[in-house]
């Protein structure tokens, strides 16, 4: 057991980005954010039927919270659960990307 834990730790150290989406997938996710999230939050994420998702608007929220909302949606609002379309690590990456501001 200890040995296995050691191996896992090794693996994690060897592939620190294993949980991170690949560059190609990241590009897809940016498109998804702009166009599919953008359908409600605005193409530039300034907000629409959904609230703004610009870094300033998200400053008070932590990435875990945001990634939870992305995966599970918000009851009582039109925000749908994106699990099934996104993995946990992809949702986490999106949450962090939104907080930092999208590339480009």
């Amino acid at each position: 057991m200890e040995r296995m834990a050691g191996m896992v730790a090794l693996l994690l150290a060897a592939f620190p980005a294993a949980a991170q989406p690949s560059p190609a997938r990241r590009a897809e996710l940016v498109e998804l954010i702009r166009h599919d999230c953008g359908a409600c939050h605005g193409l530039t994420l300034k907000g629409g039927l959904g609230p703004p998702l610009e870094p300033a608007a998200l400053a008070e929220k932590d990435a875990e919270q945001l990634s939870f909302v992305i995966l599970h949606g918000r009851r009582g609002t039109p925000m749908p659960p994106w699990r099934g379309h996104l993995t946990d690590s992809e949702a986490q990456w999106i949450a962090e990307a939104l907080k930092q501001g999208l590339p480009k």
Partner: protein
Amino acid sequence: MKRLILTALAALSLLSCSTSGLRGTGDLGVVVERAAGRILLVETTQRTALGRVDGLGDLSHASVVFSRDARHAYVFGRDGGLTKIDLLSARIERRIIQSGNAIGGAISQDGRLVAAANYTPGGIRIFDAGTLELLSEVPTGAKVVGIADAPGNRFVFSLFEAGAIWIVDASQPRNPQVTKLEKIGKQPYDGFVTPDGRHYIAGLYGEDGLALVDLWHPERGARRVLQGYGRGEEPLPVFKMPHLRGWAAAGRYLFLPAVGRHEVLVLDRVDWTEAARIPLRGQPVFAVAQPGGRRVWVNFALPDNDRVQVIDVDAMKVVKELRPGRAVLHMEFTPRGEQAWISSRDDDAVAVYDTASYAELTRLPADKPSGIFLTSRAGMTGF
């Protein structure tokens, strides 16, 4: 003056299909290239692109209405931009930023007023259609959705958070009169006026049903139709909100996307009861009746957004499935319905179909196309 006329003529001949230098606008239209902040000017006779007009700002969820002579397009951008474009010269005639965050607009029955619907600050603003001078505003304190024009130079819209429908009589445009209908239902997300101009219907996100207003008798208030269509079942996730407009009408029926169900609901306009429900492959976004009302074409939210299903109104079932491209965002028919124009955002194309044979007639390149708006809307109430 002479120079102006010469310039105008040069511009006209640029767009003309004939050698006379003159052309009509009845077969023109615009395709929104939303990421580029640009519109593509198209014509549906030869099915070609005629040019582009740039510099329109943030066009996510952009919508377009036309002047009553179908010469000018008014483009409402998400960033509050309102742009008046001359279709014949393919040039911006006027452009203003009228709010911080807008969702759409409408043009009045007499064509003299353009109303923009805003999220921030919530409300509508009424402009002179000729000059874009601000004439008045109606603050709402809530997000405005589903604005449409109605007879009597009225604008009708819903308030998302407030669950209300407001009817604004703008026959005195500097002094609009507001009729407020409260408690019409939870979270109206869009609304439309029927093609005859008599009824306004708001789709509800927060409950299963729609709100119906008889615009001949607004004093009677709104009533619920198709109430409880979800039958208490857990709604499926909605990855894109449906869109409502007068295209729902096919003869005596209205074809309305269900929210959170993979169905189109068919509402009988005679007795306002459910006539049918038609199972579909995904969450419908647009359900658009072909002119003549024989068929209704439906597109979908993720993950089925590469498909279009066609419903036969006589049989009340899906009779055809098309794959026009990835991320189908919008469909628009030519005025008499012989062609369907369909935008595919992720294939950067507008596909044109023959509606009789379902054959693809052509495919025009377009940069991330979203809405397609043909000038036949100029003569239609509620568009």
